[in-house]
């Protein structure tokens, strides 16, 4: 049995507290009036003037250009966030701009929280999906890691509760993250009317969105619960009844997941840019989550092993995990490139806006993802010997996680805060908060059952696994 060390527990709680403080500061420092927004803008310009020549300055320039062209540029005419600009432009350019910036600044703490929330939720549910894939595929190597994966899946209920709360607040107009939820977007008599959104209101409406979201979250959690229950029951069972039950639940979950995964991504991420669409998007987000999920499994495993709890896990198991990290890093790049290249190649205005905005306003992050998520992992993990070294897996894993956090950041931020992005209290605080909660929940779950799923019929194969 694993003992949750008090040191780790205190670390987890400390992370949560620090994270929470960061989140609170970010919310407190968000402006509530246009005057405050103007002050922040003025402050930004000063600060950048002093620093000069860095990434922020570039950001400021692109921001200005963007501002000037707001009502002329055909490319931009379609983005939601310029829809605001256009609309406000009628009332007066400066005032309209301020209102726009105010919305973005108000969104920032919410969006920062949402990036971390979505990242952690999705990674956790994909860890669970991977566990089920291993079960259903009757894998013989990974049984000794099942309890690690179950432990990580134990984070899902915690993060789902927060997610649900977040969704409800969003649905009740607690924030402006989803433009289509704003007042009057579907009302032709409103100045805020948006015919494109109105066209999609069969899908983009709050009741449907909320009900579907609840179905995804509750559904996933039910499977996590069932899997864990039967897995623990199997430990002391004399027959394989529970094993077969879990096999069947695994199949059912994967069938459920393959549909809910795409739909949840449409609802939770693609819906942030309601004028934009991409058929690949659901699978692309899955690719991001699956690389991160495998990395998280590998990291937790290495940690537990370093503490002497997983003696049965050898470097062949690590090698296999690292191979998956390597392979899925390439898979992510494949999907990233497929989506980007096809949209770039055809260059249809309603689609390219998505990348134009990201390329102009998030250049460093957008391009920086490629070395972090592709070049470095491939170079580090192509060697078989390297894949067996825990330090290398940890190091590469850290790079991968940072890279994929940025990926989610670049999915969410442009639609919600536009060029007002940055890494401040909110962004860092949210990550720390969820990291703390993750450590707390995962290691609590792991400590509640033996680290080896000894009832699994393939356990013996897994114990003797060498590659």
């Amino acid at each position, binding site marked *: 049995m694993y003992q949750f060390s008090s040191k780790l527990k205190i670390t987890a709680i400390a992370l949560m507290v620090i994270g929470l403080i960061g989140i609170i500061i970010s919310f407190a420092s968000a402006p509530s009036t246009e005057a405050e927004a103007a002050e922040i803008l003025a402050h930004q310009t000063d600060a950048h003037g002093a620093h000069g020549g860095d990434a922020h300055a570039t950001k400021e320039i692109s921001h200005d250009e963007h501002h000037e062209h707001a009502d002329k540029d055909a490319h931009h005419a379609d983005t939601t966030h310029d829809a605001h600009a256009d609309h406000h432009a009628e009332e007066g350019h400066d005032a309209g701009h301020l209102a726009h910036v105010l919305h973005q600044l108000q969104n920032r703490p919410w969006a920062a929280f949402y990036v971390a929330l979505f990242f952690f939720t999705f990674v956790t549910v994909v860890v669970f999906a991977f566990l089920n894939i291993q079960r259903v595929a009757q894998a013989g190597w990974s049984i000794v890691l099942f309890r690690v994966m179950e432990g990580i899946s134990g984070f899902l209920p915690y993060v789902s509760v927060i997610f649900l709360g977040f969704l409800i607040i969003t649905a009740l107009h607690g924030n402006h993250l989803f433009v289509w939820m704003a007042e009057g977007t579907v009302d032709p008599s409103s100045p805020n009317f948006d015919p494109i959104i109105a066209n999609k209101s069969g899908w983009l409406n709050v009741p449907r969105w909320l009900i579907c979201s609840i179905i995804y979250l509750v559904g996933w959690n039910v499977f996590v619960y069932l899997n864990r229950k039967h897995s623990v029951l199997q430990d002391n069972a004399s027959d394989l009844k529970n094993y077969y039950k879990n096999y069947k639940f695994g199949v059912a979950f994967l069938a459920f997941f393959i549909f809910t995964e795409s739909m949840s991504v449409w609802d939770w991420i693609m819906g942030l840019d309601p004028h934009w669409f991409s*058929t*690949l998007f659901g699978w692309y987000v899955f690719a991001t989550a699956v690389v991160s999920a495998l990395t998280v499994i590998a990291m937790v495993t290495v940690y537990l092993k370093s503490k002497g709890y997983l003696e049965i896990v050898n470097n062949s198991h690590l090698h296999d995990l690292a191979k998956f990290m390597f392979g899925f890093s390439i898979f992510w790049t494949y999907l990233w490139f*497929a989506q980007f290249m096809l949209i770039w190649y055809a260059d249809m205005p309603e689609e390219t806006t998505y990348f134009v905005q990201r390329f102009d306003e998030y250049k460093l992050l957008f391009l920086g993802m490629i070395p972090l998520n592709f070049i470095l992992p491939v170079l580090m993990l192509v060697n078989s010997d390297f894949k067996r070294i825990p330090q290398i897996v940890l190091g590469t894993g850290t790079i991968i996680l940072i890279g994929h956090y940025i990926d989610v950041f670049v999915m969410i931020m442009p639609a919600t805060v536009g060029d007002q992005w940055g890494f401040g209290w909110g962004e860092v605080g949210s990550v720390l908060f969820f990291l703390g909660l993750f450590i707390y929940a995962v290691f609590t779950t792991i400590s509640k059952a033996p680290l080896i799923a000894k009832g699994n019929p393939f356990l013996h194969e897994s114990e003797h696994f060498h590659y």
Partner: protein
Amino acid sequence: MSSHYEAPIREPLVLGEKSYHDITMDIVKPIEGKANKNWYIAFGIALVAFLWGVGCILYTIGTGIGVWGLNKNIGWAWDITNFVWWVGIGHAGTLISAVLLLFRQKWRMAINRSAEAMTIFAVFQAGLFPLIHMGRPWNGYWVLPIPNQFGSLWVNFNSPLLWDVFAISTYLSVSLVFWWTGLLPDFAMIRDRAVKPFQKKIYALLSFGWSGRAKDWQRFEEVSLVLAGLATPLVLSVHTIVSMDFATSINPGWHSTIFPPYFVAGAIFSGFAMVQTLLGIMRKVSNLENYITRLHVEYMNIVIIVTGGIVAVAYASEFFIAWYTGSPYENYTYMSVGAATGPYGWAFWSLILFNIAIPQLLWITKVRRSFIWSFIISIAINIGMWFERFDIIAIVLSKGHLPSTWTRFEPTFVDVGVFVGTIGFFFVLFLLYARTFPVIAQAEVKTIMKSSGEHYKQLRDGKNEH
């Protein structure tokens, strides 16, 4: 690789009380024996179909592409449909030999050789279409970036049709090398058994002097692994590039970012269906029931249902996003209400029936483990996947942006004849292969006999009881 221990709950992959020698004997029997009447009948039919196809191709080239049913709005129809269909079928071979090798699936060993042969013969068929659908096929070599006397006039590397040239030719080369490397120990075995000097000479040439030393085997394994590692991204990229023939365009229904992975999933789906069809016959006629077992059939069916599920999600995504775009042009794409109710409704519903509805029967264990049902369903999928490609190409082109360009496509007998010809050619090659090549990788099957053979498993279980 993995240890000798195998969980008792795993079913055996080699049935009967087989020794190493028995495996050899079972595999060389079709090669050393004589062909029976049925083989000659099948070969004769295939040959006639092939020759008919050659006639149709020569007629097309001699007369002009106008003998096909294409028109000025639907410039691609059966030609590219068949091209994509054949390339897709070819993918399962690499999947089975490369991806399943990376995933250490022992059951692949009984089917990989035939699957790879299928890949190569299917890519031959596919490779015909890019050539014969050209208006001026004699200028076909202009697609290659060769220095020339036109002031070194080069190709434009921006076209997915050019990427196709590289993709398909690389794919064929790598698949051939991968296949042939695996064949070396098996050819050597036939060489060593041959009594007729001519046969001995041939197999001595084919086996490249393989002598099976420890160092050879070590390198053999490493090469297989590296090639598998290279073939996996290759197989993904090849069908991705094929999908980009459509997805890079601006036609509604073609321009869709999901095409790359979705075409790949469809390729695995259709390829496994074809392997299922072929092996369903082969296990019977070549007496390989002990190697290609019910379990193999079931595993293939599971791959089919998984990839079929992925394809189903892709259809759903296409259908949903076509609506979600809010673009009226997306109302007539191959996955839309317009397609379901329009003049090509029959093609749309055939796709749904053969690709989505019928494969769902495989959820039932009894069906999944039944040879005859698997055979029937696999044929349904082959039909369904042909319709998928036809729908994507013809339905989308039949209703483009301008209503004044809306038209229909009717194939002529030449369109059909060329397709029938490729099926004939495929079976000519496959039937010849089945009589001259070791259709099961004996060297590989021998490595799993003691861990996964029925006899050895029984011995082990008996020992455990005491």
